C-alpha cells in the first residue's frame, strides 16, 4: 500500500510539471506584451529612455527578460520552497493572498459537496427503486430542469428576489461576514457567516445535486437488474438489506470516481459564484489576477488547482480499491 502510494505520488510530478510548464509557456508566448501594457496603463510609459528603462526593470523583476524555459525553471526552483513570488498588483506575497482566499473557497465547496451527497444519494436510490412511479417521474423532470439551469442566472435571480431591491430583503447582497460582526461572539459570527453563505451555497449546490441524483439513479438501475440482486432476494433477504448492502455498495464505484471529475471544475464554478456574491475567495482572486495579468498569482492558482485535481484523482483511485476489493491497487496504473 505504502509502496503504491509513493509510486503514485512520484508519478504526479511529471504531470504537474507538464501542466505548469504549459500554463507558463502560454502566458509568456501569448501575443500582447503585458509589461508594456501595464506600464502604459499606469501612465508610466514616457517617451524615450525612462519608459524603456521601466519596462526593462519590470521584465527583470518577473523574469520576462529570460527565455521561457529558463523563466520556468526559476519559477519552479522557487516553488520547491513554496515561494510563489509577489503579486504584481499590490506587491504582497502571493502565498499570503492565497492563504486568505483558499479557505473560503474550499469551505464553500466542501459544504455544498456534503449537502449534494447527503440529499442526492438517497433521492437517487429511491428514484431507482420506484422506477416509473409518480415520484420518479416528477423528480426526474425537476432534476433535468435543475441540471440545465445556468448557475450565474440562478445566482442573479436569487440575489434579485431575496436580497433587497423591490422584492424580499432576507439575505445580504454579498461578502462573507458583516462589517459589524467583528466583535460578535463565536456563535453569532458563525450565524452571520451562514446567513451570508446561504445563497452562494444554494447556487453552488443545485447543479451538482441534479447531476449526482441522476447519476445515482442510473448506476442503481444498472445494479438492481443484476442477477446477484435476484439471488439476494431469492435467498429471502429483507428488501432493506438487499438494497442497502447488496445493491448500494456496488453502485458506489462510479460515485467515487465522480469526485475526481468534479474537482477540476470547482475553480471555474467559483469564479462565477464568487463574482456574483462578491466573495473574496480563490475564484475572485483568479479573476482579478487574470484582469491584471498578474502572472505570479495566475501561476500559483493554476498550480494549486492542478495539485488539488491530481490529489482528487489519486484519492478516488484509492477509494476505488476500498469500495471494490476486486480492484487491486498495484494492478491499476
Amino acid at each position, binding site marked *: 500500500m505504502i509502496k503504491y502510494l509513493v509510486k503514485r505520488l512520484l508519478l504526479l510530478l511529471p*504531470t504537474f510539471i507538464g501542466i505548469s510548464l*504549459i500554463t507558463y509557456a502560454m*502566458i509568456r508566448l*501569448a501575443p500582447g506584451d503585458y509589461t508594456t501594457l501595464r506600464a502604459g496603463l499606469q501612465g508610466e510609459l514616457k517617451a524615450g529612455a525612462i519608459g524603456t528603462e521601466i519596462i526593462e526593470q519590470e521584465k527583470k523583476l518577473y523574469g520576462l527578460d529570460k527565455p521561457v524555459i529558463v523563466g520556468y525553471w526559476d519559477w519552479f526552483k522557487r516553488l520547491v520552497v513554496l515561494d510563489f513570488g509577489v503579486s504584481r498588483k499590490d506587491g504582497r506575497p502571493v502565498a499570503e493572498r492565497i492563504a486568505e482566499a483558499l479557505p473560503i473557497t474550499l469551505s464553500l465547496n466542501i459544504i455544498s459537496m456534503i449537502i449534494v451527497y447527503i440529499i442526492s444519494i438517497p433521492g437517487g436510490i429511491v428514484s431507482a427503486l420506484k422506477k416509473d412511479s409518480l415520484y420518479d417521474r416528477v423528480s426526474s423532470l425537476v432534476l433535468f430542469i435543475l441540471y*440545465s439551469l445556468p448557475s450565474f442566472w440562478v445566482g442573479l435571480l436569487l440575489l434579485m428576489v431575496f436580497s*433587497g431591491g423591490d422584492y424580499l430583503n432576507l439575505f445580504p447582497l454579498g461578502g462573507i461576514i458583516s462589517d459589524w460582526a467583528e466583535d460578535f461572539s463565536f456563535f453569532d459570527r458563525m450565524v452571520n457567516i451562514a446567513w451570508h453563505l446561504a445563497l452562494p451555497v444554494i447556487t453552488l449546490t443545485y447543479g451538482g445535486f441534479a447531476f449526482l441524483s441522476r447519476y445515482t439513479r442510473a448506476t442503481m438501475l444498472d445494479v438492481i437488474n443484476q442477477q446477484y440482486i435476484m439471488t439476494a432476494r431469492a435467498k429471502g433477504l429483507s428488501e432493506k438489506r438487499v438494497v442497502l448492502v447488496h445493491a448500494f455498495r456496488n453502485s458506489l464505484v462510479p460515485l467515487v470516481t465522480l469526485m475526481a471529475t468534479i474537482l*477540476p471544475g470547482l475553480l471555474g464554478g467559483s469564479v462565477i459564484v464568487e463574482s456574483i456574491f462578491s466573495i473574496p475567495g480563490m475564484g475572485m482572486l483568479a*479573476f482579478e489576477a487574470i484582469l491584471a495579468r498578474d502572472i505570479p498569482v495566475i501561476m500559483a492558482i493554476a498550480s494549486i488547482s*492542478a495539485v488539488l485535481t491530481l490529489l482528487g484523482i489519486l484519492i478516488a483511485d484509492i477509494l476505488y480499491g476500498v469500495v471494490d476489493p476486486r480492484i487491486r491497487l498495484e494492478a491499476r496504473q
Partner: protein
Amino acid sequence: MTAARGYWRTAWREFRRNRLALAGLVLVLALFAVALFAPFIASDKPYIYAADGRLRFPILFDYPELEGMNFREGAVKGFVLMPPVPYTSSEYDLDAIVMPPSARHVLGTDEQGRDLAARMIHGTRVSILIGFIAVFIYVTMGVIIGALAGYYGGVVDMVISRFIEVIICFPTFFLILTILALVGPSLVNVMLVIGVTGWTGIARIVRGEFLKIREMEFVQASRALGARDRAVIFRHMLPNALAPVLVSATFGIASTILIESSLSFLGFGVQPPTPSWGDILSQSRDFMDFAWWLTLVPGFAIFITITAYNLVGEGFQDAIDPRSVRK
C-alpha cells in the same frame, strides 16, 4: 420478411418515440431558424410598404428615398407591414431606457433604450454559431487524435493518453479565461479557445471505440485488401465509431453555449455592440433591484437552449444504446 433496416434508421425510429427528445429537436430547429432569419424577424424596415401607388420591400432592397424613415406606429401614410419585432438590435432610444415590457417593447428595453426582444433575437446567432463551430473544432481534433491513439496503439497510444491526462487536469474555465485575457476576447477567439481546450473527451471516446473495432474482421479485411491506413481509419473504422461521438457532441453544444454565456457574463465573451445573451444578462446586474425583465429574459433563453440540446442528446443516447431499447 421485412428488409433489414440500417443503423441510423433504427436509431431515428427509436428517437422518434421519445416525445421529450422530439420536442427538444423542434426547439433546436426553431432556434436555428431564428438565428438564420434574425434580420427578418427584428428590423426597423417593413416587409411591405405600399404608398404613392408603388409597392416597396424595404427589408429586402435599399431605397435611397426611404433612408432614415420611421415606419412604426403609423408614422407614415400608406400600407406598412412590419416585422414582428420592429426594431434593430443596435437602435437606441434614450427617452425609453430600462422600460418594463409594454405594447411598444414586448420584452422591455435595456440601459440604452434598445429593444430587448430585438437584441435577444440577434443574440441567438452568437450562441448558435459559437456552439457549432467550437464543437466542430474540438470534435475534429478529438477524432483525429483519438483515432491515432486507438489505431496505432503502443507508443503512440501511450504518449497521447499521457498527454490527455495532463490536459484533463487543467482547470478548463480558468484556462479559457486566461487565454482570452491575453489574446483579447472576440467571437473568433472565443470559438477557437473553447474548441482547442475541449477535445479530450471526444479523443477518449474515439480511442476506446477504435481499440474495440481494431480487432474486428472487417478492419483486417480492408487491410488485407491493401487499403492505406488513412482509408482504414476514416472510411472503414470511423463510421462505426461515430454514434457515441455525435451524442457527446450534442451535449457538447449545450455546455459550449453555457461556457460562452458565462464568458460573456464575466465580460470575456463577444464584445459589444454584438448582442449576446450572456452580455445582456451581465448588463442587467446594474439594474437588478427593479429591472426583472433584463435578468429573466436572457437567462431563460440560455436555459431553454441548453435544455433543448440536452434533451436531444439524451434521446439520441437512448436511441443508439441497445440496452435501453424499449419493447
